[in-house]
């Protein structure tokens, strides 16, 4: 039992790692996609922007796929319920995610203005939309989602999808997520781009970083008034993984700050996030894009850890049947499964990080527009 609890906690942390990896790496590419039409005034500049992330976007995208797979295996009930209740936004996200790889590969293969302009729009939509949805998903989960389960484990949705698309707090989180992505993408364009391209990227990135900071602070104040979730009965963290028949849960405004009041050290997490956004923007202003990129990564980690720290152990609370809220304790895989997966993660995550680093080292350096345009194989 003790081991099972430890595995559940480790996988909750690993979920955070995966979401951070996804946000940083995919967010960067999405940011470049969003900025493409704004930082690139000429076709050469746009192709250069794409070439900057060209060798890496595919690998980065796997963070997203791995995130899906890991949630599926480590928290099956969370995967089954969240993907289905958020159906409309998930499908939109999916459309964006499949449009993007095709846009990369096809855009520059035909030299026609309308062809390329269409794919540039595809980059904008498939970059901005997923980041807004990614952030808004956090915003929705923080407010609780309307669902309940039948005896056999099937979920039933109790709310219209319109609410998930258009609710003010979720939109704030969505815009903040997009702002951080623009920041991260802009920083990368500064690292490997030159001239006007880098100068324009810097303006957008700094604006993105500062906007994210403002929204982060507003969100922090807002959360005081949003109904969070708390257990009103004692919980056995080693409980079998089923949302049925669990302890009672209540909703109370400001409850998401309970963890912070109980463990003041947690305040370091939002502080880290805010420092990342502010420090990163200053670093970009001082033309230190590499430092800025890493501070942007820190901003993401701080933000995601803040949400995780506030909600723990809740993963996806139910606003209509709070006692069936999904938590780290009741939505996880079995101990045997979590153990095997941990083994694979321990071996392969360091390998992945090292070859990703190697790939970036091999391709490092400024991207020269002249070679990009001359190269038939380039994006």
């Amino acid at each position: 039992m003790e081991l099972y609890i430890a595995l559940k906690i480790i996988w909750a942390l690993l979920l955070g790692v995966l979401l951070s990896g996804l946000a940083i790496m995919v967010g960067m590419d999405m940011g470049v996609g969003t900025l493409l039409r704004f930082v690139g005034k000429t076709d050469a500049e746009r192709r250069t922007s794409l070439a900057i992330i060209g060798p890496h976007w595919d690998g980065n995208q796997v963070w997203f796929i791995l995130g899906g797979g890991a949630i599926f295996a480590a928290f099956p009930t969370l995967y089954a319920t969240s993907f289905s209740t958020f159906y409309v936004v998930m499908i939109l996200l999916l459309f964006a995610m499949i449009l993007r790889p095709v846009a990369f590969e096809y855009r520059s293969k035909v030299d026609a203005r309308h062809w390329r302009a269409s794919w540039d729009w595809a980059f904008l939509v498939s970059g901005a939309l997923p980041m807004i949805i990614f952030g808004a998903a956090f915003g929705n989960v923080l407010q609780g989602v309307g669902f309940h389960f039948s005896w056999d484990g099937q979920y039933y949705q109790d709310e219209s999808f319109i609410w998930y698309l258009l609710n003010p707090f979720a939109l704030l989180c969505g815009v903040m997520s997009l702002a951080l992505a623009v920041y991260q993408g802009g920083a990368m364009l500064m690292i490997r781009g030159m001239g006007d391209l880098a100068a324009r990227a810097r303006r957008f990135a700094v604006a993105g970083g500062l906007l994210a900071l403002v929204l982060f602070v507003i969100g922090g104040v807002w959360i005081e008034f949003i109904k969070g979730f708390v257990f009103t009965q004692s919980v056995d963290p080693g409980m079998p993984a089923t949302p049925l028949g669990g302890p009672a849960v209540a909703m109370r405004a400001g409850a998401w700050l309970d963890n912070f009041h109980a463990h003041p050290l947690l305040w370091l997490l939002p502080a880290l996030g805010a420092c990342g956004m502010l420090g990163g923007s200053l670093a970009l202003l001082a033309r230190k894009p590499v430092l800025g990129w890493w501070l942007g990564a820190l901003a993401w980690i701080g933000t995601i850890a803040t949400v995780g720290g506030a909600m723990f152990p809740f993963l996806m609370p139910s606003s209509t049947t709070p006692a069936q809220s999904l938590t780290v304790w009741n939505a996880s895989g079995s101990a045997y499964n979590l153990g095997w997966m941990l083994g694979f993660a321990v071996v392969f995550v360091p390998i992945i990080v090292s070859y990703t680093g190697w790939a970036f080292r091999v391709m490092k350096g400024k991207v020269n527009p002249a070679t990009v345009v001359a190269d038939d194989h380039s994006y």
Partner: protein
Amino acid sequence: MIDPTVVNLSRLQFALTALYHFQFVPLTLGLSFILAAMETVYVITGKQIYKDMTLFWGKLFGINFAIGVATGLTMEFEFGTNWSMYSHFVGDVFGTPLAIEGLMAFFMESTFVGLMFFGWDRLSKPAHLAVTYIVALASNLSALWILIANGFMQDPAGARFDPTTMRMQFKSFSALVFSPDAQAKFVHTSIAGYVSGAMFVMGISAYYLLRKQHREFAARSFRIAALFGLISTLAVVTLGDALGRMDDLLQPTKLAAMEGLWHSAKGPAAPWKLFALPDDAKQRDAFSIGIPYVLTPLVAHEWNTTIPGIYALERAAKAKTVSGIKAIIALKSFGASHDPAALAAFRKHENDMGYGFLAQRYAPDQNLSAITPALLPAVLAKTARASIPNVFVEFWSFRIMVGLGVAFIVVFAFGAYYSLKNELEKHPLVMKAAMLAIPLPILACEFGWVTAENGRQPWTVYGWLPTFQSASSHGIGYMIFSLVGFVLLYSLFIAAELYLMFKYARLGPGEHAVQPKPLPVPARPVFGQPGYANKPWQ
């Protein structure tokens, strides 16, 4: 209440998106190894022509790869978005190979493919070759884990149903990974990919040879592809035979439908149906031609054994359903009360619980407790009928796949023979056949998928969870929204993909599709950075 329309639309969407995705996967699997082979020759001999070959086929690989990766995302999402009950029921064991696939294979494939396309000038020859091999190995490793996941749907080995959590729980990693079905299917599927890649290269090379373009280049490409393809096709057939035997043991309903066996086949003389028109509604053949003394040795590799037919399987299903209904009623009662007596009753009928789920659809209000003794025979009959996959679809998709496979052996054999004798140009018919055959291996792969997955019906997890029970509880509006979106987006993709494929294939190696234009004079000096002019490639 489960809405049958939503289940059917979910099935339609999954089938369309999976078949669509599967158009691109075989080429990725096959071309990656052909690229590795060509680049190996380049690194060993140092001849530029082999680098040109690698670059040219690599570009076509890239066009195909992007859309393959993109449409693969759909599959990973759809379990959660459309098959919520399935995901809940098997996520603990089915999600694991998918997660491991990401960790072990997909990351590697996708990271190194970037270096493969863009790292030519930045890596040494051997390092680039290693990168190409890693891409090929990783994409095959990826197929391995996906097919291990699929193997679990066909033969749920390594997990046990847990009544407390109401799901299959992972019990044995080795049983999951070394499931014979998964292993045989992995080799069968990945080699089918090599056949597709080989036919692709051979067919396009034949096009150049017929037009007397790039002759040296095309002749060499043709030879590599023909040999690779011949060996692969022979291997595919062997593994397919192994899979057939596996179905004999593990999925009798699939095998019976594949062979159109209404009556059990007893003894060596039972005919193998070469041609038949199975009528599912009347449960007999409208017409059939059989060859005696072929079926039993072909399927079972022995003379004296009985292969159960559909009538016998339906009788067995009725007995299981009676027991399964008791299992589900006990399970529901245990879920509500945690009463040990209910658990004991469930345990007695546990292994038939899938048939209880299957019967739910035919019970009044989909409630098993509402089945009266008077209604029972009708429920049993409908459940038994539902336990058999569509025979017509299964029979013909299997035969089309096998027929195409045999045809490929002929095309590759003639191609290899004349290519080795350097007499290809005297036999334009062989080259025309190769050209026309380009899409056929992919078609065969699609029919293979239909054979495997239609034959698995009515289950998502064979014998444990019916497809009807697996879908998310959506409204029809959601399904129409996503289906319309997929159809629009995927039509756009296939049009763009085919346009580019034809365009680049026609252009041939060493020619530029997009003529480089001189850059307009930059507003600020691009080369203004110190040291830049000396190293323009950085």
